[in-house]
């Protein structure tokens, strides 16, 4: 089997599964848990507010890099 290399687990091409298959929820949970073990990080718990989805995504990316996000902590 050939070896493929990726810089991030999120660069790995998605698995393709049947559309609206009830088992897809299990697939995404197991795949996400596996990737979390490869690259563990933790978001602070609580409620955060963002003006846009891009702002929310940027905060999440900063958490993943281990930096505090720009979100307003309530």
């Amino acid at each position, binding site marked *: 089997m050939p070896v493929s290399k990726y810089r991030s687990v999120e660069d790995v091409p998605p698995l393709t599964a049947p*559309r609206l298959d009830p088992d897809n929820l299990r697939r995404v949970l197991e795949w996400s848990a596996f990737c979390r073990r490869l690259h563990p990080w933790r978001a602070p718990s609580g409620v955060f507010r963002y003006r846009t989805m*891009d702002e929310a*995504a940027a905060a999440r990316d900063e958490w993943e890099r281990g930096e505090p996000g720009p979100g307003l902590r309530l």
Partner: protein
Amino acid sequence: MAVLAALEREGVAYVLVGAVAMALQGEVRATQDLDLFVAPDADNVRRIRAALDSVFADPDLAEITSEDLSGDYSVVRYVPPSEAYAIDLIARLGEAFAFDDVQWEVMRRDGVAIRVATPAMLYRMKRDTLRWKDRADADRLRARFGLERD
């Protein structure tokens, strides 16, 4: 799954979007976010709080308000204590999408009806975003489902 069951039990007006929705549509990638498009009216936000409280019993949930979601904050994120994922409550995406604009269909699992955005809807939400992961998702959706670039 407990969260999705609680949303149904409380009668929450929501549509699953984002990477989990993509996975249910057959494109499975890793994620730590559960993205929910929600109606931001006071009654629905009360139902959201009740649903999440039935799962997490967290006093922080009182900070999720209709005033925020209907007002300046179109996205409210809740990260449960001792959980490894975030729940994003999305009231609108820019001027393009509000809750009533989201097209969805139902997938059933373990007796729970899950409202999931259609592939075309997910594509339209993701294609114009700044984040490369979302643009890559849009490309995959377009290729798999034969969607027009429009």
